[in-house]
């Protein structure tokens, strides 16, 4: 993978926006990988949680916003609870989704078809409400 790096890219406004929205300091991460190791859905991710943070440290925000990872996160908070540096990847993930969803150009990753499928099988309301709030905006 080729990265374009420059002072300007690394200090991108959008990365600062992620820090602001998530309340996290991305520079705190020292890449130990515990967040990725504890994540229950990591197998389905195209970029690991720790890699997402590294890419953000290098200003590669668009790549991260395009990833599958941010939509697969189940918000279980295991990554946050195990980080030795107090970084909450779960919050960073919410912030990244918020940026995409607030652009209003994205196709929601959960749509009406998904909802009707699970409602037919008697899924509890909370699952549907939760999925729509986290993944549809």
């Amino acid at each position, binding site marked *: 993978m080729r990265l374009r790096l420059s002072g300007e890219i690394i200090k991108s406004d959008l990365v600062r926006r992620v820090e602001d929205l998530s309340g996290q300091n991305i520079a705190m991460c020292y890449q130990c990988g515990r967040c990725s190791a504890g994540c229950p859905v990591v197998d389905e991710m195209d970029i690991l949680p720790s890699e997402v943070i590294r890419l953000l440290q290098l200003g590669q925000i668009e790549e991260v916003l395009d990833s599958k990872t941010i939509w697969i996160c*189940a*918000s279980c908070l295991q990554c946050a609870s195990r980080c030795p540096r107090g970084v909450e990847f779960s919050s960073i993930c919410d912030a990244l989704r918020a940026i995409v969803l607030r652009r209003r150009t994205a196709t929601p990753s959960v749509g009406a078809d998904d909802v009707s499928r699970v409602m037919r099988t008697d899924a*509890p*309301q*909370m699952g549907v409400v939760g999925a729509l*709030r986290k993944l549809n905006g």
Partner: protein
Amino acid sequence: MKIPYYPGCTLHERALDFDKASRECANVLGVELEELPIWTCCGAVFPLTTDSVMEILAAVRNLAYASRMGDKVVTLCSFCYNVLKRTNKVMREDAERREKVNLFLRADTETRDKTESFLKKDYVGQVDVLHYIEMLRDVVGFDEMAKRVKTRLEGLRVAPYYGCMLLRPHGEMEFDKNPEQPTIFEDFLTALGCDVVDFPMKTECCGGFQIVRDEETAIACSQTVVASAIKRDADLIITTCPLCLYNLDRKQKEMEKRVSGFRKIPVIYFTQLLGIALGIDAEYLDFSDNYVDPRPALAEKNLV
């Protein structure tokens, strides 16, 4: 003793069995769960973005309604508990968001609740959010609960599943001393006379709301949890969360298709198990909604 109770929308609709069992157990233990006269869905998931205001408004309204009734509110669903407790912390500690949210609450009072003033004062986190199991431990007392047990659940091997939302983030939820090795459900089960089955997946995620978006991924999570309890010869799993129950119980139908020789395991709400111990009729506790019927496992130990 009366305690304000917030059922949440799932217990009001799809998880009626959980609501019913929990109210009846409380009655037997001398506590009346007094449902808030007005409430709405809490929103199910706590927004992790720091600028969220609209996203926490519904939860604050519920807390504000509770504050008219007392200084506590009890809830059962793990998601409700997580959302209410975290929202409460925002209202206690984040002055900027507290002020914004209260602007909405003041507008509520003016527009639609003139007869009975919605709030006499701003909501600033006056209410303590308690989970039902905390109520059992701290208000009733596990010892007192144990004294009311009619049938000790001797020989029943029960695996307590915590999931995520009760425990994380530990700094805010403070649900138990150690978020990686909680013991409150073990203590509860011991008081009922069960054999507690410790299993390493008890605090892992069941896949949660991802079941809506990506069923395969969520089932992989729930299957890991279920398999871990089965491997340790549990007779059943208990949970506090309707979504956990759905992923762990109902989705065993899918697991059966995927794994040859899959042995099913019943998953029930912790208050349904408590109900059995307190002598409440199994008919009343209503296991009709469970995919895996827990009655054979209970009958084997002469509990139903």
